[in-house]
């Protein structure tokens, strides 16, 4: 196996889980690897996990403490050039996904994103057409940057090692980071570290058995469940887009919650779908959910056709009322 550079960044001074997963993949290949870390506290974070690495590099400082294209691209370019490794593995976080394709252009490198496996023969696997088609490919071009999908690899156990060589990188930028916002004022959305994904489908906003819509009760049931279980909250695209069709909506569900063909593809261990009819465009985002259950009034819904492990043919309002008494 050719020499590899494991390129990571810090979050709050530590290498996040996605970084340890990328390190785990590099170690599983069995070849020589360098380690490079970028961000606040990068030198310390690198030393905590650099056991086994042939070379250790870091870029840190105020300019690189925040996630920003211009500075991240300059730092990553310097780290990759300093290592000289032909194969670069990095976690597919938003920070690196923003910066590394541009770095690939600067280095005349190839890049593949959303990589879910890499074998010792240099073949990678990833998905196309919004997780509807899987493919395996390899490239002769080097350098080759691979962004590894979080949740797709076992994490490496941190092993302390050598202190890094700290590179000096300068970069001009016209962009300042002003802060962060959470659109939902504290409500959950799709968190990668939650054990359960709860998806609310359009059925919550439709007429119920009594001929009336019960959006307020639906909102209370959903939010109460999410708060008690600390699960991720997702929705099907149809529910997100109902506002554009003049229908009743659950106001706390936004495009950030969207799972499926035009939304995210989370990787939770368990997923519970409610009032979602299980058609392919909505379910395609469930490709990587390991255990799937659904509650639906329609016994012939899409979930029944081999997409869920268990389908409860029942009224989600009634089930959720009972469920909330138990959790």
């Amino acid at each position: 196996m050719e020499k590899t550079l494991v390129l990571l960044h810090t979050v709050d001074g530590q290498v996040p889980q996605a970084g340890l997963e990328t390190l785990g993949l590099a170690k599983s290949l069995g070849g020589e690897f360098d380690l490079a870390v970028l961000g606040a506290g990068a030198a310390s974070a690198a030393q905590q996990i650099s056991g086994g690495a042939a070379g250790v590099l870091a870029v840190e400082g105020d300019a690189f403490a925040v996630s920003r294209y211009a500075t991240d691209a300059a730092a990553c370019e310097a780290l990759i050039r300093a290592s000289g490794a032909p194969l670069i593995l990095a976690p597919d976080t938003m920070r690196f996904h923003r910066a590394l394709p541009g770095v690939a252009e600067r280095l005349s490198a190839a890049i593949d994103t959303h990589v879910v496996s890499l074998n010792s023969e240099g073949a990678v696997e990833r998905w196309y057409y919004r997780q509807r088609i899987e493919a395996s490919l390899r490239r002769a071009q080097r350098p080759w940057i691979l962004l590894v999908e979080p949740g797709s690899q076992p994490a490496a156990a941190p092993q302390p090692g050598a202190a890094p060589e700290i590179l000096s990188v300068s970069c001009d930028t016209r962009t300042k980071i002003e802060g962060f916002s959470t659109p939902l004022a504290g409500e959950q959305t799709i968190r990668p570290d939650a054990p359960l994904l709860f998806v609310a489908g359009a059925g919550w906003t439709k007429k119920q058995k009594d001929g009336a819509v019960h959006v307020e009760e639906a909102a209370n049931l959903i939010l109460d469940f999410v708060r008690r279980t600390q699960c991720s909250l997702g929705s099907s695209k149809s529910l997100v887009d109902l506002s554009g069709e003049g229908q009743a909506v659950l106001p706390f569900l936004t495009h950030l919650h969207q799972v499926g063909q035009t939304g995210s593809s989370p990787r939770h261990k368990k997923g519970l779908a409610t009032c979602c009819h299980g058609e392919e465009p909505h379910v395609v985002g469930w490709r990587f959910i390991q255990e799937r259950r659904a509650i639906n009034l329609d016994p012939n819904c899409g979930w029944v056709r081999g997409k869920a492990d268990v389908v409860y043919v029942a009224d989600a309002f009634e089930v959720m009322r009972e469920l909330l008494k138990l959790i």
Partner: protein
Amino acid sequence: MPYQIIVCGGLAPDPLQTLEPVFDPARPSLKNELMLPAVFDPWAAHALYEAGHLARQHPGSVVRVVSLAPKAKLQQVMMTVAQKLPLELVALDGPGGGFTDAAAVAAALADAIAAMPDLDRSRLLLFGGWESATRGAGAVMQRVAERLGITEQFLAVDELSVEADGSLLVKERIEGGRHQISRCSSPPVMLAWATGNLPEPPNHPQTGMANMRVIMPALQKAKPVALEPAAEFLRTALPSVIRQTRVVKDVPAAEIAREIAEWIRQ
């Protein structure tokens, strides 16, 4: 202050279509690819709606769409897209499927933009989708921008506002369902859009008629682009895992709730 807004966007199969790969190691594709109904790529479409909205707020702004796709399919899709907002089209006639190489696509798009004779780069806002519904790499727009020398780049953008001093306030999606808020002092910038906040604009037939007068000649002049394969595909396939679904019917809600609660606790 007017902007020159360039939206890069390709075509994607209509999301409701059944897709089946045809494996050819040199050029993998979809079965009946040219027969599948196509739409303007959903993420690029969001970028286009945001571009139209921004152009209306800043009179004198121009929206140009640069698209690499099979010319005949592009013409069909533009019949719909052109009714949404005023735009100019720069068409590149080439393969547009998911298995084309992101770097080659980026090079073709960047060359087309760089060749625009009246482009004022100091007013340039380069828009596109953060990923496509085909390749889904999320790597094209950054490469296009780099080739054009634009180093202020934003990915998964949901909101852009122009402040009184002309600076650009950008909200990008980051992990954990949060937005990062950045301020860029001036163009040129690249924004790869997520869904944004704007609905699809209603069709406006008069706009469509006016647009088609310039789009049709642009399609006729579409430059042919050949994308050489850069990767060796070893396999393309539909996922084969089908679950043995257990259907629970005619069971009281309380019992179902007990089973789900136990499953959650495991």
